[in-house]
């Protein structure tokens, strides 16, 4: 029972440490969507963004290498990947943040705006999965 939660808790702690490092060292929010978009569109002093983005697959790679945990295979179709990707991209840009920026950093800054965004995208995700899995 405890073992089933050991990985999620360890993962959450690592994410919390990462966001702390970003704020303490560079004074930035570790918000993936904002940093990712900035890495693509901003070309002045943007190397830190590219470094953070490269760190994501690198960290994931090393986790699987050292833990021996199986690599998850996504079970959605290509159509779902395209539709999901388009909506996620459009939504995070419009709502200025995703699970990391609003959910982990924003709430920690006690931002009501981020709390509202987090509650809404969680609810929207729940409603979507419920409709897709149980009503379609």
């Amino acid at each position, binding site marked *: 029972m405890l073992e*089933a939660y050991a990985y*999620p808790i360890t*993962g*959450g702690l*690592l*994410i*919390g440490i990462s*966001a*702390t*490092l*970003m704020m*303490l*060292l*560079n004074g*930035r*929010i570790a918000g*993936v969507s904002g940093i990712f978009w900035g890495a693509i569109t901003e070309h002045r002093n943007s190397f*830190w963004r590219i*470094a*953070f983005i*490269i*760190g*994501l*697959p690198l*960290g*994931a790679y090393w*986790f699987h290498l050292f833990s021996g945990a199986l690599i*998850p295979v*996504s079970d*959605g179709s290509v159509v*779902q990947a*395209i*539709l*999901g*990707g*388009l*909506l*996620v991209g*459009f*939504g*995070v840009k*419009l*709502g*200025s943040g*995703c699970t*990391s920026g609003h959910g*982990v*950093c*924003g*709430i920690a800054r006690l*931002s*009501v*705006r981020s709390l*509202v965004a987090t509650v809404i995208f969680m609810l*929207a*995700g*729940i409603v*979507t*999965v419920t409709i897709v*899995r149980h009503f379609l």
Partner: protein
Amino acid sequence: MKAISIKILSALLSGIFFGAGLAASGMTSTHKVLGFLDIFGQWQADLLFVMVSALLVTIVSFRFVLGRKKPLFDSNFHLPTNASIDFRLISGAVIFGLGWGIYGYCPGPAIAALSYFQVDTLVFITAMIVGMALSSFYMKFSSK
């Protein structure tokens, strides 16, 4: 130059921790994410602990970090100033949640999952960039 490279190294370190955390937590598994969002089906609650434990760290650490005059390697904190709960925030969050529930990736896990070398991940990220560009275009030409 020195100040710039230490900022880049700090960001890389933060990214590595973040990516390892996403992989360890199960957030890079679309199966687990969709199972977590499926509260009216066979709910898999484990991912709740990801956000709770991440927040336990940041809520405490941010109090100390943001109490400082400045971060270690920059002259000031770069914090969002927009606090308004407006139509863009709400509709953006709804659209994001919709896409999240369709495939099971949010931006961080999708990028971390690039290390798995699966074609669908690339498809998702390409579509995500197109979505961001469309959104940016839309925001330029629509009034608030």
